[in-house]
């Protein structure tokens, strides 16, 4: 399987405090990775580093075989940020927000863009909001629109930073189901930051546990049977995480 991401000895420092220290890993095409860790563990910093949104203080990142410094294949990547810093005054319709996901892809004509956007809104049960102002939607609805904005790029790599925080349980299930479907049917590689290690175990195939340093990276089953992890988390915490874990059990529709 081809490598999508290769990270070597990555270091990120904020205000002289190292938030990511000497992390190395690879991600292959079709992977679905849950990136978990405690608060302040460097999860968001790691994905921002992958996307070139924060400067590296050491190490090397390659995306799709191209070094990040000279990376130009942004059309293959989509990102759903942790917290959308939206402006309440911004007069954007839902359709406009979704279509804006194609920024930097001028070869896709306006009509095709609108068709794709409408299909995605339909998949996310958001058809009736098409002409509404984005700022008037609830937090959960906004999050779904932003997912549609990411998916309209038909990315090969989808990076999501705590995307389900504002969603109620029912919508969250649908959200995860859609991601599983995209991963399985289209082979989209997914890296999802989450603070809920147990929950992500139900959907993602691999767990990447970060606490500034890489603590664990591998299949959930290995995590649950790892003596090293048991000593790191403690017997009870590891049991809590693994108790809910039932890999690939996500409903697809």
């Amino acid at each position: 399987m081809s490598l999508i991401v290769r990270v070597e000895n990555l270091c990120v420092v904020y205000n002289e405090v190292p938030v990511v220290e000497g992390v190395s890993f690879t991600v292959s095409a079709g992977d679905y990775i849950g990136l978990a860790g405690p608060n302040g563990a460097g999860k968001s910093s790691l994905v921002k580093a992958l996307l070139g949104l924060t400067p590296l203080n050491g190490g090397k990142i390659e995306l799709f075989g191209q070094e990040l410094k000279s990376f130009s294949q942004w059309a293959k990547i989509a990102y759903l940020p942790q917290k959308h810093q939206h402006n309440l005054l911004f007069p954007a319709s839902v359709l406009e927000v979704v279509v804006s996901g194609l920024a930097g892809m001028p070869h896709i004509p306006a009509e095709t863009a609108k068709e794709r956007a409408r299909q995605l809104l339909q998949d996310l049960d958001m058809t009736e909001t098409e002409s509404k102002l984005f700022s008037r939607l609830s937090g959960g609805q906004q999050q779904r629109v932003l997912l549609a904005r990411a998916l309209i790029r038909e990315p090969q790599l989808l990076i999501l930073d705590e995307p389900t925080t504002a969603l109620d349980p029912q919508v969250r299930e649908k959200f995860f189901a859609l991601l599983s479907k995209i991963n399985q049917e289209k082979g989209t590689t997914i890296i999802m930051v989450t603070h809920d290690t147990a929950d992500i175990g139900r959907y993602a195939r691999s767990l990447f546990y970060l606490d500034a340093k890489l603590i664990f990276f591998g299949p959930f089953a290995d995590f649950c049977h790892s003596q090293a992890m048991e000593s790191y988390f403690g017997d009870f915490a590891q049991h809590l995480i693994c108790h809910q874990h039932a890999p690939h059990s996500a409903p697809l529709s």
Partner: protein
Amino acid sequence: MEFLDFFQYSFLVRALIAGSLIAVLAGVLGVFLVLRKLSLIGDGLAHVSFGGVALGLLFGVYPFYVSLPLTLLASFFIFKLSQRARIYGDAAIGIVSAVGVAGGVVVASLAKGFNVDLFSYLFGSLLAVKSSEIYFLVLLVLLTLAFLVYYYRPLFALAFDEVSARAMGVKVAWLNSVLLVLSALTVAVAVKAVGVMLVSALLILPAAAALQGAKNFRWALASAALFALAAVWLGLLAALNFNLPAGASIVLAGFFLFLGAYTYSHFRS
């Protein structure tokens, strides 16, 4: 005087054309500036333009030719200052603004004798706009509209959410630079028309009015340009009928339009 009477006098026609072109520029660029909380950039650049006008008058050069490059330089300075010097955009604008005014005042005090000319730039003289400035404005409007149409999606993404736009590979720094340059050019030429004190109002009021009831972003851009056009036409009409200063009348017309848009939007929702 009625609206059609405008066309009997060439200086009025020039004023109307120049005012309308400035309105289109200020309207659409104002939407980006207001949404990105850079509303006061017009004020800052206008103050630098004031310094440029004073320098031009001191050295006997047509003020526009000095204020234009100086305003452009100031826009880059604001951009770099806010990017690299751990300073928020509004503080960077404040620094440049203060230096512009201080420089202008110092130059004016050094060379006594052109205070009347300088005063005309403080409050504008739309009726004294030259043909060469209209040609410049036509070119600037064409460039701005072409830029907005060609880069519409990236510009929307940038204005909506800069971080996500960068993650999409949008050349954020380049787009920001072009927007700043276009704003600087607009301010430099608008200072002649509405004056240093009022130019930022022309960037802010139409955009603020448009944002009250806009259904989408395209609508906001179009209606901001229309609000600005209406402000210029109504302001000019009032100025000529009641013998008022044109720049101030335009700004007041813009304010009443904003008030109307706000009231309509408030009662509708």
